């Protein structure tokens, strides 16, 4: 069904998402074709659209035009009017030559995934596609969408490449691949639809979805959730040294003395905090299943990462030493995302076809 003519999308396209489970023999048949296409084509990192992966079929408008051609033929035949017949043949000829035009409106287009952004489960992950042309032809009105989503139309007329930003649903934690990408075109007249379903071999890491877990347990933090003012002891043994300021670090520990002397921006490290450190600890959440624990750990991690105190993370068989900063946060998130990732259920073919688990 062309999305633009979809009666469901007619009234409020923004609020009504494509129904992933459509009933009716047409939808069932369409799913079968896609499943067949999925099996037939191996995953690749880039595709050049050609005879091997493009399908073509008339749209509703095409079939309706066929009916009009038939009616015109009847009119011309019954009135013995050769000119009406000639017009009917002209329309038929246009319909037939549109097969070539529409096929050419995708053939030769190269598509690859240029960027996939990591993110939290349940979020939309940015997925950027790179479309490049192999020859002189410009590609008008190419529509792209991941299975189960709305299409976006682009014109590929840049000399080197055009980029399209789409997003995929992060359906679960762990490593996921994008669902099938549909590339379609109805150019020029909308009488035929040419399309390809592409399976990319790229994948992306998805962090657990943060679920509120309350304040950090006492064992993890001596001073509550870490938002109390830290005590600075000048010359105390707790002070361990300086490191240079990194973007995003809290300004609380900046050595303003050095800064005022023009020596640069340094941050004081306090060794003493190491003993009363903040830990995102697997064992702090007994009696929960794995995913529930990870989701809550993720929540704590995000809270602590917003603060300035160093924190560490303890997972079974894995410990990340306390630290601060963006890369530390990323390390922790990735550890959560990867935690026993091989034990997660693999993505079903239904996911590839519908974009949902």
């Amino acid at each position: 069904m062309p999305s633009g003519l979809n009666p469901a999308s007619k009234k409020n396209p923004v609020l009504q998402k494509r129904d992933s489970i459509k009933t009716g023999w047409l939808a069932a048949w369409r799913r079968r074709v896609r499943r067949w296409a999925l099996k037939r084509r191996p995953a690749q990192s880039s595709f050049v659209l050609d005879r091997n992966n493009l399908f073509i079929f008339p749209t509703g408008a095409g079939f309706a035009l066929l009916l009009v051609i038939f009616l015109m033929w009847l009119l011309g035949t019954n009135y013995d009017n050769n000119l009406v017949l000639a017009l009917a043949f002209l329309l038929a000829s246009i319909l037939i030559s549109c097969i070539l035009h529409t096929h050419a409106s995708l053939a030769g287009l190269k598509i690859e995934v240029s960027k996939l952004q990591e993110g939290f489960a349940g979020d939309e992950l940015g997925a950027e596609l790179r479309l490049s042309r192999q020859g002189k032809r410009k590609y008008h009105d190419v529509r792209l969408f991941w299975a189960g989503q709305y299409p976006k139309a682009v014109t590929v007329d840049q000399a080197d490449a055009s980029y399209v930003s789409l997003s995929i649903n992060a359906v679960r934690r762990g490593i996921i691949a994008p669902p099938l990408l549909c590339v379609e075109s109805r150019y020029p007249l909308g009488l035929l639809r040419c399309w390809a379903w592409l399976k990319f071999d790229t994948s992306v890491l998805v962090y657990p979805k943060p679920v509120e877990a309350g304040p950090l347990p006492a064992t993890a933090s001596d001073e509550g959730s870490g938002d109390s003012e830290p005590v600075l002891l000048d010359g105390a043994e707790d002070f361990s040294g300086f490191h240079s300021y990194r973007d995003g670090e809290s300004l609380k520990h900046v050595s303003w003395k050095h800064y005022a002397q023009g020596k640069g921006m340094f941050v004081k490290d306090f060794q003493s905090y190491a003993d009363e450190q903040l830990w995102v600890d697997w064992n702090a959440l007994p009696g929960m299943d794995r995913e529930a624990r990870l989701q809550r750990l993720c929540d704590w991690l995000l809270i602590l990462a917003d603060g300035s105190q160093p924190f560490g993370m303890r997972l079974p068989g894995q410990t990340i030493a306390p630290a601060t900063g963006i890369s530390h946060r990323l390390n922790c998130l990735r550890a959560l995302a990867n935690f026993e990732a091989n034990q997660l259920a693999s993505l079903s073919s239904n996911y590839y076809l519908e974009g949902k688990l």
Partner: protein
Amino acid sequence: MSLIYQIPRPALWWLLLAQGAVILPLMQYLPLWLIAVWAVCVGWRIQVVRGVFDAPKVMVKVPLALTMVVALVLSYGKLFALEPLVALLLLAFLLKLLELQSQRDVLLLLLLGFFVASTQLLFSTSIIAFLYAIISFTFLMAAFMALHTATATHSFWHSLKTSSVITLQAIPLALVLFFIMPRIGSLWTVPLSDGNAKTGFSDSMEPGNISQLSKDYSPAFRVDFTDKKAPVQSSLYWRGLSLSSFDGRRWELPFQDRDDNMRYRRIAQEQRKHNYGWQVEFASYRRKDNSPYIDYQVMMEASFQPWLFALTTASVGAKDVLSTPDYLFLSKRPVSQRFLYQARSYPEFKRQGQSLGPSERYQNTLLPSGSNPRATALAQQWREAGDSDRRVIANAMRLFQREFAYSLQDTLLSELNPVDDFLFSRKRGYCEHFASAFVVLMRAADIPARVVLGYQGGQWNEEEKYLLVSQADAHAWAEVWLPEQGWTRVDPTSAVAPERIELGFRDYIQQSSTANEQNGFAELRQSPLLMQLQMQLDAINYSWQSWVLSYDQDQQMIFFQKVLGGQEHWRIVAVLMGASTFMLALLALWLWWRARPEAPAAELVPWLELEKKLAAGGWIREPGETPQQFSSRVSRQRPDLEVLLERYTKMAYTLLYIPIGSDQHQQLLKDLAGLRNSIRL
């Protein structure tokens, strides 16, 4: 960048443009108030788009549509004829404009548009109308394209440009389909146009109604003689219909024959029972070997009359056409579109030993009592002098020749006794006056006589070898009954203006002397250049007709026989497939050519050559890596190439700033090639 689910604005503009293009030609045939309906619908739609009005509610739309339909039916008085049906279709096409919500509505409207645009060809089959229909198709396609294009990166005209290209490219395949797709002939009877614009003369004759036609050079029919030889003008009397009922002023068909359908049915019934006497004789005459005949093909323009035209005495081969007792040809339905028929005429056929039936004699000698007394008296005077029929005819002709003048000047004859007025005071007139007066004289002398309407002469087109008979060639003459040879043609006009008959109307007008200026011919005279041009245009029209319009089942069979060498199904299918594939292959070739790889800019060529060479050695430039970065990356792994690569890169950069074609440029290219060859991987 994002998809548009509403109707794209350009699609709406294209829709309105296309709709205007579709409607325009139909307005020649349909009530003009439909234009006003369209204007209202367009206005409303635009106001809706601008957000000023609401979309019309059901309470408005339904009564509006019903009112329009009723208005249409009332203005036509019926529904099941071509015009009201097309008008109804057009009305739906216009009113749908009030109900455009989704893309699907626009789609429906556009599809309807293709159909409506093709109906104009039911009314006119000229080349212009056909080309116009193709242009309106292109507009509809532009709207189609604008509707289905979600990216708004194109200019407004992009869709028209592309759809024109697509249309032009589709024409070769359409031609193949047109000539090869088998024709099957009408499947069922359809309502025909009842022609509110009847052309040519009507089925009655009053003084003045033929001379009106003298200004009308539109074609009546064209004749293609089988021997392709120019015929003798004076023999070309194209008989159409005969009028035998006279009320003192107006000549008409006999009362019982005035209804077209009844007349056809009566004659068809009579012929089912027995052939007319003349038909039996004619049939045996035709069987004789030495009977001279002329074969020709008449391509008639729509006249909205049932009469076909032929030279005397003819047999016509066409479906649903009857021969009447008066040797005329009657079509079952009025000729409402161009009509082609074959005819064979035997100019020398005469009936032997026959007599006129009493009722026919009565009908053909009847004069309204008391009217035109002077003419009656004159004829009776001739008769009483003991003259034979032939002498009486000769007397009348001599009268015309001596005292009368041929003139187009509108002669207002007295209401009471127009023939007397014409014969004894005006003495100038057009063929209808002479024919009418002549028949009155004959009848008064008790010679059965009638008026015949038709065309005389025609213009021979020397290049295309056909005869063009135009409305201006319309003519009226008389037929009298002579016992020894039956109905005999007598043309009183030939006595007054023999050149009119010998030259044909047009040439007569061109050549008539200045003395005739007062006759009203001068204003009809055309410059020779214009006439030449008209003839050439008509020749194009004629080719159009014989090649395109009359390409029917029979012609197709001849075409298959000639071009394909047979009519077997496999042959037709094979040629159809072969020719279509060939046409599509040409299109595919064009599309491939359009998508060919772009030639790199000349100044980049040396660099690309180097990249190619390095790629063979396993070094591939990363996307985003500059040539310098790339060459230094390679140099790190192959220090032996460092100097060469550095020089090459520097020179390749230098090349960018030197005008192409200069000596320095050439030298640099040569150096680069040498350097490249010295790189050994």
